[in-house]
C-alpha cells in the first residue's frame, strides 16, 4: 500500500472544487484515459484578473485526485502571473509530500494549469514542434527537459517517476539519457544535501538529519574500521556535541581527529559554521 500523508488522504476523500466552471475563461486538459490519468481544469477570473473560481475533474489514482484538489486550492485567488509560478514541488509540498513514483501526479496538475492559462490567452499548446520521446505515454523532449531541470532529476528512473516517460516499453531510455546528458553534462548535479549546505539556511530538523546522515556515511565507517566509535550526544545551535568511544576514547590523537576529520567533514557536507566539541564522561 502507498504511504500517503494524511493530507493526501484528506484531499482524496474530501476533494475540494470538483466539477466544471460554467462558461469558463480557461480550460486545460492533460493526460488521457489510456495513460491511466487525466485532468480537466476550468477556471473563471474576476474583474481584477484573479482566479475567482477553479474546478477540476480527474481520472486517476488517489494521489492524482489529491494533487488536482491541492492545485485548485493553491491557485484560487491568484492572478494568472502568480498562478503560473506554482510548481509541481509546491503541489507536492502542500500535500506533505508524495511517493516518488507518484510525483508525475503533481506534474500533471502543474501542466493542466499551464494548459488552462494558455487556453485563456489564446495560445495553442503545441506539442507538434517537439519530438515525442516516450511514445507509450506521449511525453515530449521539451517536457522531459523542463521537469528534469526544475526537479533536478539525474536518472532515467526519476524521469519516469515524474513524467511517466520511459515507464512503458523502455525503448526511449537512450533518448532520455541523452536529454539528461545535455542538461547536466557528464557530471550529474550535486546531491540535494550539498546544495542546501551551499545555499539556503538549514532548519534545525534539516541540520540534525544532515549531521546524522553525514556521520553514518562519511565519518563513522573509517573510524570504526580503526576500532573506534563516536556517538552524537546533542546539537546546540552550531555546536555538535559528540562522545568518543572504543579505541578513540583513550587515543592521544583524538582531538586532532575531531578537528581535522570529523569537524572538517561536517563543515563540508552540512554547514561551514559547525563546531565539534567532545563531551567527557
Amino acid at each position, binding site marked *: 500500500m502507498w504511504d500517503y500523508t494524511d493530507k493526501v488522504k484528506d484531499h482524496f476523500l474530501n476533494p475540494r472544487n*470538483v466539477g466544471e466552471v460554467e462558461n469558463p475563461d480557461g480550460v486545460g486538459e492533460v493526460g488521457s484515459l*489510456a495513460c*491511466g490519468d487525466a*485532468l*480537466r481544469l476550468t477556471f473563471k477570473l474576476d474583474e481584477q484578473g484573479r482566479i475567482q473560481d477553479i474546478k477540476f*475533474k*480527474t481520472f486517476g489514482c488517489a494521489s492524482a485526485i489529491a494533487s488536482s484538489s491541492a492545485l485548485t486550492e493553491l491557485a484560487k485567488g491568484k492572478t494568472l502571473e502568480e498562478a503560473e509560478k506554482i510548481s509541481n514541488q509546491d503541489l507536492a509540498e502542500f500535500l506533505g509530500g508524495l511517493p516518488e513514483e507518484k510525483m508525475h501526479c503533481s506534474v500533471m496538475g502543474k501542466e493542466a494549469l499551464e494548459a488552462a492559462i494558455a487556453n485563456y490567452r489564446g495560445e495553442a499548446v503545441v506539442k507538434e514542434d517537439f519530438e515525442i520521446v516516450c511514445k*507509450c505515454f506521449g511525453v515530449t523532449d521539451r517536457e522531459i527537459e523542463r521537469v528534469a531541470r526544475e526537479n533536478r532529476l539525474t536518472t532515467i528512473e526519476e524521469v519516469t517517476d515524474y513524467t511517466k516517460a520511459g*515507464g*512503458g516499453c523502455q525503448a526511449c531510455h537512450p533518448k532520455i539519457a541523452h536529454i539528461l546528458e545535455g542538461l547536466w553534462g557528464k557530471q550529474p548535479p550535486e546531491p540535494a544535501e550539498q546544495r542546501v549546505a551551499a545555499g539556503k539556511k538549514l532548519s534545525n530538523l534539516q541540520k540534525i538529519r544532515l549531521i546524522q546522515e553525514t556521520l553514518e556515511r562519511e565519518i563513522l565507517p573509517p573510524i570504526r574500521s580503526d576500532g573506534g566509535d563516536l556517538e552524537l550526544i546533542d546539537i546546540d545551535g552550531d555546536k555538535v556535541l559528540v562522545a568518543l568511544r572504543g579505541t578513540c576514547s583513550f587515543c592521544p590523537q583524538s582531538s586532532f581527529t575531531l578537528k581535522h576529520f570529523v569537524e572538517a567533514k561536517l563543515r563540508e557536507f552540512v554547514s561551514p559554521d559547525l563546531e565539534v566539541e567532545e563531551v567527557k564522561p
Partner: protein
Amino acid sequence: MKTIYLDNNATTRTAPEVLEAMLPFFADLYGNPSSMHFFGGQVARHLKTAREQVAALIGAHPSEIVFTSCGTESDNAAIMGTLYSYPEKKHLVISRVEHPAVLNVAHHLQARGYRITELKVDGQGQLDLEELRHVLTEDTALVSIMTANNETGVIFPIDEIAAIVRERGIPFHTDAVQAVGKIPMDMGRSPIDMLSLSGHKLHAPKGIGALYIRKGTRFAPFVVGGHQEAGRRGGTENVPYIIGLGHAAEFCLAHLEEENTRVRALRDRLETALLERIPNTIVNGDRQHRLPNTTNLSFEYIEGESILMLLSDEGVCASSGSACTSGSLQPSHVLRAMGVPFTAAHGSIRFSLSIYNTEEDVDVVIDVLPPIIQRLRDISPFWQDYVDGKPMDAFLTGGDVAHHVHG
C-alpha cells in the same frame, strides 16, 4: 469497523486448526528429522504424514512431493531443474499471462540466450491450443503454463495442454498455485509432469510451498545442499511449516466441495448484483472456465487504486490490475494480453473469496460499492462526456489507442 477480506488470491487466513497443529514443532518437537536418534526420528514421522496429506490433495504419490519455501521457489526449481537436465535444449514455452514467478524467470533466461515463446490469449483469457502445437520444436526444453490465472481466475484446459506437450516428449510444468485447494486436481489421471503449489494460498502460512515431480521426470536440484527431499532440494526441512502445509492440504480437501458450491454461489451473487447495479461494468475472463472464488470486474472511466482506497475505507479488502497499484505505469499484463478495452483496463477490481466469507460480507460490498463507483465517476472527466454521448476525443484516448491496449 469489520474487516471484509476478499483478497484470497493474494493470501489466505491461516486456518486456526493449521496453526494449532504447527505449534508443538516450534517448542517441544524441535528435532532435526535427519538425525539418527529417537528425538529427531519422531519428527520425521510427522513429516512423512504431512507429505502424504499434500500428496492426497493432488492425487500424487508422497515420494513425488518436494517441499520448498514458496510457490516462486517451486516455479524456479521446476524451470531451472529441467533446463539443467536438458542442457542442449534452449527453447522454453510459456503463456503471456503467467505469474511473474514464471514470466520473469523466462525473461531472465531470454537475456542469457534462451529462446522464449509466450503464447497469446484471446479476449476471454483462453489459449489457442493450435498455436501451442505449432510452436513446439526439437529444441523445446520445457513448457510451463499455469493452471488458473491469479488475476482473472480463468482456468486453462491443463490436462489437454499437458497431453499435447507429452505427445512430443517434452516435459510439462504447471504453476497451479491458484488452483490447488480450490478445484480438484488429480495427478493420477493427468499427464502433468511437474506442478507448483503454495501454502499461503490454501490456508497454510507464508513461507512454505511444494513442487510435485512425477516419478521418472528428469530433474536436477535448484537449491543444492544436503540429501534432504531425496536429494531434490537441499536445506533442513522447515518442519513446523511443512506440518502446517500438510494440515492445510487436509483442510482444503475437506472443504473442496464447499468451495465449489457455497463459495461459488457467494461469488456469483456478488458478481451478478454488481453487474445489475453498476452500469458499464465488464467481467474480465472466461466465466465458464473460472475458479469458483474469483471475479475480476472492470468499472469503466475510473481508476482502480481510487476504488480500492475507498473500499478500504469501508473495511473491504480487494485488489486491482490498475497501473497505480503496482507502482508500474501500465495496467496488468494479463488484462493487456486479453486486449481489455482502454476504457476499462485501469478500472479493474479483483474480488477473491474463501470459505471464511459469509453472505453478510457480500452484502456489504453490494451495498457500498455502487456509491463508490458513482462518486469516482462524478470526479472523472470522462463519465459525463460518455453519458452525454460526446465523441471520444484525443484527450480521452491519448491518440495511439491500439498501442496502449495491446502493448
